[in-house]
Every structure is written in C-alpha cells, then in structure tokens.
C-alpha cells in the first residue's frame, strides 16, 4: 500500500477540477439526475453524501491496516452503510420534508459509486488526515455540482430559485419550461453541462474516461 504524499490542500481542491466526480469522472449519476430538481434538494443531498463520504473515508483509512485484502469490499459496504443509516435517521427526524422529496435516493447513497471509488482508490491507501480532506473535497465538489445542476433546472423549470422563504427573482419573468423538472430535462441539462465542461475546463489535456 504505497502512501501518496500529496498535500492536504491538494486533496481538497482536486475534487473540483481533475477528479470532479460528476463532470470529470462521470460517477454517481443516479442521484445527480434524480434529486437536482431544486438547489435546496441538491444542497441537502450533497451534504448527506459529504457526511457519508467523509465518515467512510476516515474509518476506512483508520482501519486500512487491519482489513484483510480479500474481504475488503463487504467491510467497505458496512463502513458506508452505517453513516447512511445515521443520515437517514437524522433527516427523517429533523428534515422530514426534504427526506420525503429525496425519497429512496438517501438509502441509495450506499451504492453510490463515488463513495466506494474513493474508499477503494484513496482512503484504503492513505493516512487519515488525507482521507478526511479527500472526503471533504470530493463531497464539497459533489454538493457544488448538485447545486449548479439543481439551480439551472429549478430556474428554467419554475422560473425562480427558492431558498426557504426568499425567492430570486420574486416574480418569474418568463414562462417556465416544466420539462426541466422531468427526466428528459435532467438528462439533457446534465449532458450539455458535461459537454461544456469538456470544452472549457476539462479540455486542458485531461482525458475523460
């Protein structure tokens, strides 16, 4: 298990550009499409994934010397499922409305490719602090992605973006295209955003697998 000596800062930042889970690595598609019907939903889903990812990264990293290689996947699954259950219970208790809207996609975080990928590729090979930063970085990047996609779809789909009580713009100045809230809108919006990412940021020699 070669331990990479990357700096903490780099671990956090890389989640946004080179290893952006949604736009560069194109993993974790299901939640990215399903819950991004509004900025708020995107935000809370992002936070949930951030918490689960960081929790899992830290514990995997802590136990990485004790986990026998052959059965590491089931152990990863347990280490990921535990924080998910925590998130479920916390959300059901304090944010029932959001929990209802996110529906089955909160428990589905367990099979979210991002988390298993980070656990396998990074946490299992790096010290705790790096894993923590990596978890926070990737989680934060994922949250930002969800909010961007959620924002675009909510704005085009409902004409305004709502934060709790405040709504920008107060009165929609165009007739909203309801399709943006439906699956076709989601697929097309994300597809176009990924293409734009490839054309702009990603084009600097980074091959998109």
């Amino acid at each position, binding site marked *: 298990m070669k331990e990479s000596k990357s700096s903490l800062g780099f671990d956090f930042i890389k989640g946004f550009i080179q290893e952006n889970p949604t736009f560069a690595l*194109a*993993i*974790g*598609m*299901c939640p990215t*499409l*399903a819950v991004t019907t509004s900025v708020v939903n995107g935000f809370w889903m992002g936070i949930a994934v951030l918490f689960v990812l960081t929790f899992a990264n830290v514990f995997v990293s802590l136990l990485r010397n004790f986990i026998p290689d052959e059965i590491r*996947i*089931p152990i990863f*699954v*347990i280490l990921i*499922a*535990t924080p*998910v*259950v925590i998130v*479920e*219970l916390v959300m059901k208790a304090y944010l029932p409305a959001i929990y209802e809207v996110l*529906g*089955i996609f909160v*428990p*589905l975080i*367990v*099979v*979210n*490719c991002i988390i*298993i990928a980070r656990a396998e590729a990074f946490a299992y090979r790096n010290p705790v602090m790096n894993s923590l930063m990596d978890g926070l970085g990737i989680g934060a990047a994922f949250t930002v992605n969800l909010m961007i996609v959620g924002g675009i779809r909510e704005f085009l789909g409902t004409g305004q973006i709502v934060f709790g009580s405040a709504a920008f713009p107060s009165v929609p100045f165009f007739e909203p295209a309801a399709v943006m809230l*439906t*699956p*076709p*809108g*989601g*697929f*097309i919006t*994300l*597809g*176009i955003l*990924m*293409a734009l990412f*490839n*054309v702009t940021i990603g*084009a600097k020699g980074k091959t*998109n697998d």
Partner: protein
Amino acid sequence: MSIIAIIIGGVLVNNFIFMQYLGICPFIGVSQNLETAMGMSGAVVFVMTIASAVTAAFEQFVLARFGLEYLRTIAYILVIAAFVQLVEIFMKKTLPGLYKALGIYLPLITTNCAVLGVTMLNVRQGYGILMSTINGFAGALGWSLAIIIFAGIRERWQLMDIPPALEGFPLALISTGLMSLAFLGFVGLFKGLF
C-alpha cells in the same frame, strides 16, 4: 393493482431509466454494443427479480417481525451482496454457459442503483413477496428494454464523426434525454383500467 398493470407500469409507464433515474451508470457504461447489452440485461433481470423476492421475504420475516426497519439499508445491501456472491458460486458449478455469458456483469450488479432501488421501492409501495418479485421483474424488463434500444442506437455511432467534447457520457446522457421524451407518451397508460 393487478400483475399486468405492474408489468406495463415497470416496462413502459415508469421505466426505471427514463422515468425513475435508476441504474444510469451501467446503462451508459455497458451499452456500447448489443451483445454486451443483452448479456447485462440477462444478468439484471435474473438478479433484480430474485433480489426483490429475497429482500421482500427478509423484510417480512426479519425486519418487520423484530421491528428493525431502521436497519433496512444495511440489511438490504448485505443481502444483495451475499445473494450475488452466492449466485456466482452456484452458477459457476451448475450453469457454466450462462455464467460465462453473464460472468463479467454479476459483480457489477451489486453496485447497480436499480437493484437496491427496486427493493426500496417495493417497501415504499408496500408490496408483499409476490408483488415485489413481479415489480422487480417488471423493473428489470423495463431497464433491459431501455439498454437494448440504446445499444442499437449506439452501435451506429461508430459510423459517425461525433464532436470530441460530446464523446462518451455527454452524448449518451443527451440521447437518454431524447429517448425519455419518447417514453413520456406512455405516462398515464392503462390508468385505472386494470
């Protein structure tokens, strides 16, 4: 809701890919050509149907009885992971042909959102064991229909000059969006008739 309504619901009306966003990663990853798509479909139908039955039974006889619903997520993912492992071992011995055909896709399936997704949906809809199995089968059929259609479309892309920025995921997502536009037509099909 009779069996036919679930089947039509699963395949056309609320198709797992086009209407419920479930199982997108393998859908885009494995649809390069028709043979792999059919192989994956076979594996998904097999696993989703049995997984729904097993988790529904597990729900009824273990979670509900001992009031452990809050452990559902962990329990289901472990049950599915174990079940897929079991299936691999079982198939290696008795059905080598089928195993070889499905071989590379079986481990992939455990991380497929559609499998865990359908088990969660079964619980939400309050289906019993039989209904869950049928719903799992219907969902898998819908998923397979989608990936086979998409594989047919993607096989033609090798004959085109697709702009590099759109290569791979972006174009696949936009195409899935266009396909789901067509499936919008089935919304409300056979409502209340069965």
